[in-house]
């Protein structure tokens, strides 16, 4: 098997995540789709690291994971505070800057 199949899998997962971001309206599920896209790019980076035979791709994937953790913490805090003021987790309901 050609290891490029991992890149195909990454592309497929990235596409599913992108469609999910566009289709779903629940802010939490939206965040999960973004996480899936980040994971797919990590898989591609790990495969490229194998392609080139050095570890730089894995280092970048590692930093992506750290940034994803920070992003999720802040994003979920925003969702919780928006839910407190609007009592809704739907992204369609937040159409005003201030309530």
């Amino acid at each position: 098997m050609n290891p490029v199949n991992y890149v195909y899998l990454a592309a497929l997962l990235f596409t599913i995540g992108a469609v999910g971001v566009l289709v779903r309206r629940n802010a939490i599920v939206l965040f999960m789709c973004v996480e899936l896209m980040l994971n797919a790019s990590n898989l591609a980076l790990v495969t490229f690291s194998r392609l080139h035979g050095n570890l730089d791709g894995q280092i970048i994937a590692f930093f992506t994971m750290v940034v994803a953790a920070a992003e999720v913490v802040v994003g979920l805090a925003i969702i919780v505070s928006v839910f407190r003021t609007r009592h809704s987790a739907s992204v369609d309901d937040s159409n005003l800057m201030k309530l």
Partner: protein
Amino acid sequence: MMTELATPLTGAASTGEAVQFWVLAVVAVSGALGMVLCRKAVHSALCLAGTMLALAVCYMAEGAVFLGVVQIIVYTGAIMMLFLFVVMLVGVTAEDAAKEALKGQRWAAVIGGLGFGVLLIAGIANAKLRTFTGLQQANAAGNVQGLAKLIFTQYVWAFEITGALLITAAIGAMVLTHRELTETRQSQRELALQRVRLGTQLTPLPAPGVYARHNAVDIPGLLPDGRISELSVNPTLRARGQMRDVSGDMLQRMGELEVGTAVWLDRRTPAPRRSVELTKAASPTEAEAEEASE
């Protein structure tokens, strides 16, 4: 196909890895599709956790052992638990609205996504990726040692910036979820006075559960005539429709008992019970009290 035969594939995966890949790919893609298609956020989170576990095994198979372990600990351990916590805080019932804000947006999104995927995969298929060096040499001293050498020499600046980012994110989360108390909290005395002033329900609410047969908070207490007391069950359980009703069963048993008693006392018709009229008269006040309390 001709060009593929012409250039030999170097660094190909073994048969075992191929089998593993196809199993994991099916798991990962079905998990991702489940995440997008599930209506409830909890189910989406669980599907995503499955996808992430499959990807962690993929990393390990590709020689990135450290990343595989970090994926399990950080993603499936920490991030997915955080997601589940927020789903719990925000409410399990927060489902997607069926109505579209923009007309035809969903179909446009699906078609656009399909086009994007086709372009991406066609682009990869067009690239001639036939030579995989493999990580045998890079991982010779161990994967973790190799990564550590890179992180603490070439990427040390990025690594320190990452520390600053994590601290900022932690402080940001605390600031965003912190809520100032704008008015003083009401004391027990003030709450009692307010309750008397409103005059809706002075006594404590009735207790749930039909004791000696069932005792659980999702079973409403029974009124003297066998009807259920709505007030005895938590409003959240009532709103979710998770109230278990035992009144029908109880009424039937009571009826059997009365008939049995009448037969035993050699009477044809049992005397009408007084409590039925009493509670029927009392029921409107209960409904009013419930409306006022909400």
